């Protein structure tokens, strides 16, 4: 509710800013740690770095092989999200527009996938990926994410397509376009809002996922950022400055993207779940 700015509002403002300062304390502790040399960490754990040292960042970047980890993460995330958008929107278009008992059953079958926790199939899937020779490969991870995130993606697209009028495609089809052409040139552009949501939710999930990449990619040289950071932190546990610098570097790319696209990201997270 929008009321004018009153003394009460000012008090609330102070309270909220104080909450934010307390909320940011861990971040402050981490960032200052990253800029300190070991002597400063021991003597002045919470004070600002004086003088700031950037040595830890270079060492952390090298030791955690963050450069190649970022490339691995980017490749896996981008390819999986593209596959999800293409496969998910096509399937949802079919499910939303074909009214038969069979297509409805198929839609329910996809919804079951939202309920199923992946832990149930985790071990058989690990075996399957191993048998297919895809352990330690990009393809294995991309296949995994596409399959695991499809139910949610199909659910979001189907709900959205059902709310669109059918007239556009009918006109295109009557004009002689094929189904695929009608989808590509008429339907898909109309799906932009929900494609944005699908893209944001899937990209953030895949970029940050830890468990499966640890299982599938550990030791392969194709580890994603969270897996590299996990190994890095466990190796240099007691070197606080170095660990802090590694964490800051590893979190920075997604935080920068978030700050640039904050409105879209927040909207995606708050709207996506309601279809």
């Amino acid at each position, binding site marked *: 509710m929008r009321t004018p700015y009153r003394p009460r509002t000012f008090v609330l403002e102070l309270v909220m800013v104080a909450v934010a300062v307390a909320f940011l304390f861990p971040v402050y502790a981490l960032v200052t740690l990253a800029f300190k040399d070991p002597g400063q960490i021991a003597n002045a754990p919470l004070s600002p770095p004086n003088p700031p040292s950037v040595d830890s960042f270079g060492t952390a970047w090298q030791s955690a092989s963050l450069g190649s980890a970022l490339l691995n993460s980017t490749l896996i995330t981008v390819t999986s999200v593209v596959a999800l958008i293409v496969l*998910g929107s096509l399937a949802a278009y079919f499910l939303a527009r074909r009214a038969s008992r069979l297509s409805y059953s198929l839609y329910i079958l996809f919804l079951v996938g939202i*309920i199923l926790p992946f832990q149930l199939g*985790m071990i058989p899937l690990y075996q399957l990926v191993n048998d297919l020779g895809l352990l330690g490969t990009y393809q294995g991870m991309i296949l995994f994410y596409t399959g695991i995130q499809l139910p949610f993606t199909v659910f979001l697209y189907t709900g959205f397509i059902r709310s669109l009028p059918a007239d556009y495609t009918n006109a295109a*089809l009557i004009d002689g376009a094929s189904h695929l052409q009608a989808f590509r040139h008429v339907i898909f552009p109309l799906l932009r809002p929900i494609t944005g949501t699908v893209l944001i939710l899937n990209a953030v999930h895949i970029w940050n*996922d830890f468990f499966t990449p640890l299982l599938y990619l550990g030791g392969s040289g194709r580890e994603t*950022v969270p897996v590299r950071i996990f190994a890095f932190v466990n190796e240099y546990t007691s070197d606080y400055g170095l660990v802090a610098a590694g964490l800051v570097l590893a979190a920075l790319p997604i935080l920068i993207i978030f700050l640039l696209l904050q409105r879209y990201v927040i909207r995606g997270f708050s709207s996506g779940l309601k279809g």
Partner: protein
Amino acid sequence: MTTVRRMGGRGGIAPPWMFAVPALLVYALVMLYPSIVGAGSAFTDWSGVGEERSFVGLENFQQLLHDDQALGALRNTLLLTVAIVVVQNGLGLLLALGVHTTIKSRMVLRVIFFAPVVVSPVMVSFLWKYVYNPAPDAGLNAALGAVGLGALRQDWLGNPSLAIWSVAFTVIWQCAGYSMVIFLAGLEGVPPELHESAMVDGAGTVARFRHITWPLLAPAVTINVMLSTVGGLTLFTQIIAMTNGGPGYATDTLSTVLYKQAFVFGKFGYSTAVALVLAIFVAAVSFVQIGYLRKRETAA
């Protein structure tokens, strides 16, 4: 030859089956087939090596009932879930109410509170692992000392009765902003006229919240509760990164136990039995969620 096109449900011309086939194949390969095999393995003594396995009926589940680590993990999982659901959503609601006002910092505060949501739980866990450093002159203990509360210093992750709450708080710190934005979306859907007319009738802030805002927030509450429940039940990464289930088994969850049983002890059959128990919990919660979402879908 003429093409006969079937008419779709809302007057559209139905697209061909081929549109759904690729998605269905990938979904079946990655989720349906492994889940069916997994559910079946819960009744076998599969070691995970080779195909050799024999049917052992409910033996794995009987073993589970006598396995202190697994029972402790079940208890921890439920405790963590309740703590996270209540505190994360309570805080999320307060934050949402706080920034859904005319305060000047409201947009900046939204970004700050939401930011941890986009960071990998592994990194957030390591950040908090430093905050929970047992040394008196590091992290939270140093901050307590600096403000004269040195008596409250703790071994946050090393104390078996405290560790689980320290982990819960890490999850809450990371996810409160998620609850906040969902509540905010709900608050933005509350018509201001309702508040204005209630104010004319002399209703105070608390009365207006109870009788206008809260009922209209029901959908946001449901979504938040469901999301945080499933998140709490399947908690894994934060545990592995911060405590690895310790000290002892004090912070093991169903997910960490089934992971250790499979990949540390090679008991794949038993591990999938734990996974099946977890799946039943999650399915029960999600089922309510899906039913609710579908009801809204048809109402819209």
